[in-house]
């Protein structure tokens, strides 16, 4: 199993990876609060991007509504904590099945009735929007006024209830990103992974090769939704407040897809590298604009968009495939 997981990765790449991992493990010891916040965001988007990539990068199903799974996970765990004092790790046992069921619902509707391509993408947006409006009126979770978690005291970290210093969230997200990476690689090397790639490449040819495309597309949606839901739980306990307007917002869905798009669709390193590129660009823009004293709302997003545009134009297949080729990091793509 370990042998197959590292198959095709050059030894020096493994050494670089191990060094990077070691660096990120000790990073909170010397990182400023500012840098730590940035790293938390990076790993949040690396993890959610990796989860989204299962659907689009592996199985070729474009979801533009992944905020739905973040939001459901966040609200389920937060509401159970607020109302019943249920620890988030137990809440996860409720949050994950809820998100998985939502994914299964969308998948069933789409794949049974042959809603494909852009229409599928529109369906994912629609369900996320319906859910946002639904939560705007759900009194149990505070409706549009928001749901608030009791704010933590930073005196000590309580991993069980996820109350504590940002460094704790950082480690949880770092571990989640590492887990998602290994899980995705294992899935790609499995029978299911091959069938996903076949569906992505040519669904009709995949069916002719005997693949039950409905089943494997359903698996992709459900696994992706379940994994994304975990990020929602962390989101809720990190920010301590939830508003349907924010957490279910389509801009959240778009942010989730940026990292894998920029880093390299369907690749394993892409979402992680992409998250670094995007956050670095975003922060650099913010700092630069501050430095020049520009304070118009929206300027930051505008410049961010322009820079991303240039990145996509320069390396259309993604930053990771480009980097990997330039530096000879891989023997072969998985």
């Amino acid at each position, binding site marked *: 199993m370990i042998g197959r997981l590292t198959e095709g990765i050059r030894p020096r790449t493994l050494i670089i990876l191990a060094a990077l991992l070691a660096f990120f493990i000790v990073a909170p010891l010397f990182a400023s609060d500012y840098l730590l916040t940035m790293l938390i965001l990076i790993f949040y988007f690396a993890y959610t991007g990796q989860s989204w990539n299962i659907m689009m990068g592996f199985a070729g199903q474009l979801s533009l509504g992944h905020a739905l799974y973040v939001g459901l996970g966040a609200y389920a765990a937060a509401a159970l904590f607020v109302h019943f004092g249920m620890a988030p790790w137990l809440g996860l046992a409720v949050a994950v099945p809820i998100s998985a069921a939502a994914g299964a619902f969308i998948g069933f509707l789409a794949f049974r009735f042959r809603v494909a391509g852009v229409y599928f993408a529109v369906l994912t947006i629609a369900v996320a929007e319906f859910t946002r409006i639904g939560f705007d009126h759900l009194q149990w979770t505070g409706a549009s006024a928001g749901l608030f978690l009791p704010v933590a005291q930073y005196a000590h970290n309580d991993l069980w209830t996820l109350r504590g210093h940002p460094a704790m969230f950082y480690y949880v997200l770092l571990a989640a990103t590492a887990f998602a990476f290994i899980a995705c690689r294992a899935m790609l090397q499995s*029978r299911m992974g091959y069938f996903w790639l076949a569906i992505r490449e*040519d669904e009709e040819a995949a*069916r002719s090769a*005997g693949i039950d*495309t409905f089943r494997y597309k359903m698996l992709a949606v459900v696994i992706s939704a379940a994994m994304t839901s975990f990020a929602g739980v962390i989101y809720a306990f990190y920010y301590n407040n939830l508003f349907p307007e924010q957490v279910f917002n389509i801009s959240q869905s778009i942010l989730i897809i940026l990292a894998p798009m920029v880093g390299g669709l369907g690749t394993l390193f892409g979402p992680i590298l992409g998250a670094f590129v995007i956050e670095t660009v975003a922060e650099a823009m913010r700092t630069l604009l501050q430095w020049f004293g520009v304070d118009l709302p929206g300027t930051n997003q505008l410049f961010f968009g322009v820079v991303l545009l240039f990145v996509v134009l320069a390396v259309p297949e993604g930053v990771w495939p480009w980097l990997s080729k330039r530096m000879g990091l891989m023997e072969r793509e998985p």
Partner: protein
Amino acid sequence: MSALLAVAGVTKRFRGLIAVDRVTFEVPAGGIFAVIGPNGAGKTTLFNMIAGVFRPDSGTIDFAGEQIAGLSPDRICRRGISRTFQIVRPFPALKVEDNVTIGALLHRKSVPDARAHAREVLRRLDLYGKREQRASALTLPDRKRLEVARALATDPKLLLLDEVMAGLRPTETDRMVRILKELNDEGRLTILLIEHVMRAVMALATHVLVMHHGAAISEGSPGEVVRDPAVIDSYLGAETVV
């Protein structure tokens, strides 16, 4: 001798047009059966009904003693009928070996087993040396053989080939003919092919069915069929080289 595939009275209409009109024939186990006819005769529609892309409006399709008309393409493939497409459809971004491994995974749970089987199939189709290339980088003759390799890797009892010779040079056609003959001899694989290249049909087929305007107009051995006046009139033309 029992038929592996028995098609009886199969009809398919597209709006007003009758694409396939009450076609009946039997493919004996171990045979190579060719369907020929001019463009628009309904050959590919007939194929698509056998492969599960279309459900026949009427008629029955029996495979290995079971009714398969109307089953989905993936179910039909799992029962042992594998097909190629007239316009090749490999998985372009994947390597040649992965294309074939996907086929081999149909009846194998383990990826290494499937890979080993895929390599065997690639050797038979003269593609082993190109197994690390992306499918999109292959030439047309190679892609045609890749299409056959992927279909073959699913361990079919019956292989449906939709114009695999089209666009090939004579040397490539001969290579494909040799490979298909080997598969038929050694693998005891039954083959049903649609073909325009008469040179290949004459060399391969044990039975030929001729279609015209959706209907079967002649059936028999290749020698009989090419002498049938109805066939010469509608398809081959008077001065056909036999």
